[in-house]
């Protein structure tokens, strides 16, 4: 375990009865990055975050947060890790200020400036009872409460669920950038691809409890390309024998060729054959996810 990783897991497993929620997870989240864990509902993303913060007990494997063992140092981890669960429930009878006061009592470090700042940003009135807040406002308050202890690592599960578009943009443009500027690490679990494409440095694709792929988002985009070509007549089948072609789809004379390696060579082969149109496009995250898992993610 080195300090280069804010999160590191080795063969981490979690079963709920017969259901395998997380299977042999080997996850490495570099310090100072925004890492997006993407997957369908039930893919195991939330369970991963919960295991890291001690809400769920792993059945097997190792895990480290900020270099601390999740099995033996969960209390210290929670001093330094902010966790925002999906649709968090906070005590409805408390007011916003009472909830803040309640949470302050648990931490060695607490920044009232952050509290004031985000109360203003999210326009949360201190005297409002929590059961009168919308789910989006509850998420905003829970986020504020996760940020106030100045965590070194933020674990956010569907953090913008229920946010209006303005607050969502604010979250990604301001909150996350502030975290990064301070050298902190953010691990996000989400199925909202558009948002993740905008902010993530690295992505991990989860499917049925397994981490099927992980790499920097830019590298994924650079490596994964698609050629769309409309030939004037049927091309010879040898044209598609290149090992860099990972998937081929044909509709009449139109072909979609998904490439992981040898783009230049394949493009020249296609260009050499009579065609009406020939384009190279970068697939979006959804296309990439689809290729790795065989299932599409939903877009909000």
């Amino acid at each position: 375990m080195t300090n280069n990783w804010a999160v590191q897991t080795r063969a981490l497993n979690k079963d709920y009865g017969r259901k395998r929620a997380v299977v042999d997870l080997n996850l490495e989240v570099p310090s100072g990055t925004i890492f997006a864990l993407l997957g369908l509902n039930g893919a195991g993303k939330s369970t991963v975050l919960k295991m890291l913060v001690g809400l769920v007990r792993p059945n097997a494997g190792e895990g480290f947060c900020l270099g601390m063992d999740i099995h033996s140092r969960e209390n210290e981890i929670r001093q330094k890790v902010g966790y925002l669960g999906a649709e968090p429930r906070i005590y409805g009878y408390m007011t916003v200020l009472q909830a803040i006061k309640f949470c302050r009592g648990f931490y060695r470090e607490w920044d009232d400036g952050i509290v004031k700042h985000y109360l203003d940003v999210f326009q949360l009135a201190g005297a409002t009872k929590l059961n009168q807040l919308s789910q989006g406002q509850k998420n905003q308050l829970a986020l504020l409460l996760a940020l106030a202890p100045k965590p070194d690592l933020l674990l956010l599960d569907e953090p913008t669920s229920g946010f209006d578009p303005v607050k969502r943009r604010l979250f990604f443009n301001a909150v996350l950038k502030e975290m990064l500027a301070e050298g902190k690490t953010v691990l996000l679990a989400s199925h909202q691809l558009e948002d993740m494409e905008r902010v993530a440095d690295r992505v991990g694709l989860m499917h049925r409890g397994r981490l099927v792929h992980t790499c920097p988002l830019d590298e994924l985009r650079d490596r994964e390309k698609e050629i769309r070509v409309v030939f004037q007549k049927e091309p010879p089948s040898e044209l598609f024998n290149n090992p860099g072609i990972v998937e081929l789809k044909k509709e009449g004379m139109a072909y979609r060729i998904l490439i992981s390696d040898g783009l230049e060579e394949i493009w020249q082969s296609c260009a050499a054959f009579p065609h009406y149109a020939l384009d190279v496009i970068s697939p979006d995250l959804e296309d990439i996810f689809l290729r790795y898992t065989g299932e599409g993610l939903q877009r909000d």
Partner: protein
Amino acid sequence: MINSALFIKELVENRIKFWIALVILSVMALAIPLLFDFTKELEHMDLSPLVNPEELSFILSNYHNYAWSQWTAKNLTQFASLAAIVLGMGALAGEMAYGTAPFLLSKPLTRRQVYMTKTGAGIFLLGLIICISTLVLIAMSAMLGYELHVGSLITSTVVVFVGASVIYLGTAFFSTLIPDPVKAGVVAGLFWALAAVPGFFQATVPYSVYYQMKAIPYWLYGDFPWFSLLVLFGLGYLFFEGGNYYWNRKDF
């Protein structure tokens, strides 16, 4: 080990139960000295077979016996047991039923700290209810000029408090297993009702928690109830560790 922020939250959440229990038990405490003269009249009535005349005569022979029989052995034991179930049934199940457990447990507290603080707050409230209502009895008795052996009454009350704490911890144990306060309360109520059965038979009466709570030999012979306290502490410890074990293993 006790976290003050969580402790205060627990007191606030249970305040309504606390006030209701305190008011009811205090009214019961007030009624005991106020009804002494009226109850004494019963001695001249034939209440057999409902009441053993010798027993009645002994109880009404002096105010202290009467107060002990009505308070420590009856009202306090029964109502404190009920209050312990009502306070304990939501101790852990409430956090699970209302979905607030993940929020709480993501804070830097160990599960044991959470369990200890929550049960500690419940027992503290139970202690306050018992203490204040007993003081009401003592004060009212003094005001009406009745002679009460305050020291032995308080000692008896401490034993009742320990017994009620055991019932609370047992209920908290069920509250850990069953993530619904009402269901946990019903199961705990049934369990503690069954626990009364040994007290119905002469041969098994020492195995009744309620018998141990009343510390009858202490009242009759003045023997300090070491054995009762030892049994109750042991039982309470088992419930505490059992509940804590399951709480620690739960996924949220």
